[in-house]
């Protein structure tokens, strides 16, 4: 898999991670508040969202390279 097609697949999986990460952060926040013990769960949610951001950026780069 090369170029834009690969970037598109990664964009979709990135979106999945973004949804999951957002859900984890919101649910943890609603359930446990800003507890120090919940820090690993927040870190997990943030890492998932960050991965989605990187994949979105890669997708834009791949599109720009094509055009």
């Amino acid at each position, binding site marked *: *898999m*090369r170029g834009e097609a*690969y970037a598109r697949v*990664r964009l979709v*999986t990135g979106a*999945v*991670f973004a949804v*999951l990460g957002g*859900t*984890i952060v919101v*649910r*943890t926040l*609603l*359930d*446990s508040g800003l*507890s120090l*013990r*919940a*820090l*690993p*769960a927040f*870190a*997990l949610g943030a*890492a*998932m969202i*960050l*991965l989605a951001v*990187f*994949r979105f950026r*890669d997708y834009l780069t791949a599109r720009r390279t094509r055009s």
Partner: protein
Amino acid sequence: MATANLATAPAEEPSLRRSVTPWGSFSWGYSDVGADIFVGLGLVLGAAAGASNVAFLFAGIVYVCIGLAYTELAAAYPVAGGGQYFVFRGLGDIFGFIAGWAVLLDFTIDIVLFAWSCIDYLSKLVPVLSFVDHPWVHFIVVFIVIAGLAILNIIGVRESSAFNEFVSGLDVVSETTILFFGFLFAFQPHLLVHTMSVSWPTPFNLMNGVSLAIISFVGLESISQAAQETQRPASVIPRTSISLILTILIFALAYSNLALGMQPWRAIPPDAHGHAQALWHYLGNENNNGAAVAVLASYVPYFGVLAALYVPLLGAILLLISSNSGVFGSSRIAYAMSGTNLLPSIFQRVHKKFRTPAISIMTFCGFAIIELIFASLPSLSPPVKHVYARLFRGEDGITFLGDLYAFGAAASYSFVFIALIALRLNDSQSPRRFKMPFNVPFTYRGNRVEFPVVAVIGFFGIVSILAFTMITHEIGRVAGPLWILCGIGGYLIYRRHKALPVFGSQTHDWRKAQINILQEAGELEMMDEYLLNVRRMDVAAAAAAAAVAGKGPAR
């Protein structure tokens, strides 16, 4: 894998085909590092209990620093030697040897630990392979797996790149699905906080957990191995590496959080005394710690029914690939070290018929089998179990292997951080398409350089993990340093025998080497930039020398 066969290297001048695509590069790294969580999860849950996610978070932060360091170095020096090459180039021969020797320890442990865990995962489908119930069967099968991999590598058979990519892809999809179902239908944040509060470990156990958590992140050598065979590595490697680093971090954090905060879909069997037990406790016990991901997957709502059937097999295949990469990687590193006079030339010898480095393969698989015997002995012989209990606090086989794996990784990664700082200062002319973030610019010996702050943070992080390993692991504290000391002893004898500098370094033409590396990588723009930088530096040095000479007589 599309890795070049070492066998052909001496006959046809080593030049690896650069055919690895971005997905190939990702899956290569993933099949190495991604398998680690299959081994690490149960071990960490057994040690760090309610703080397992904290242990993974700490080790994960250090791992991100290591990953960034490897990405920068692999993009700037796209050669297959990995950590050993970076240290060799940045710190000289003896440190290059020590880092390479520590990596070799990790590769030999990699062979046996992953073969061991592969059989543990299969035992969830074929109970006769269970280590706890049938230790002799387990031992014999792991032995056969290692011997089989050695023979296959000597004959020259390796798994194909397409197969590797397929298994990695299937695993990413599968793990993501498990997490999706687990977090959406069974994750209870208040249960997570409750488990962490009531099952928080002692500081000793937390340190033990952190030192074991780092094994979930070992295998970054694959980034540099992929760099040597990737087209335009300077632009591809940073993209795929960062994605790989984040994916691995996410899986490690997600599984540990899920294990602590998931409401299981089915009832957990009671413990040996008939008491109810929590999911994390069940996953971390001796029966399940070798196959924790498969057991966890089977307790995920809805998808768990299907996952229970295929995740053990998928895990076993991924672990077998990882074990094979240990056989291949150890022979490749030994071959490279032998070529730079860090190891005797016998490790460069190839089999007449198969043209593979048979002696290297047999030597390091031999070490792996010794480690397997040492790890299995307490279960195979009750008197030995008493001796281990007295000397080593009764550590079980897989924990012993985990100890040494953590020691080797922490030792070699520590040197890589120092090498990165040294190369930033002494080789500022090499273009870096990717740099670790947060750098402090300053002038060093007349050159403008950038000091990597993250490398310092990573160095202290990995050194603390090394210290935790030494403090908490009775066997690791003895066997790890002993491996390094024996290696240094052998190295000193070899260098003296060959009349080479014992503590110093041989003369290396790094400029020529760098031009060749960039040319072979197809990074011609970088090569031009490098030549320009070198020329500028030479002109500046000549001008400075002339200025000093001009001032000389006036004084």
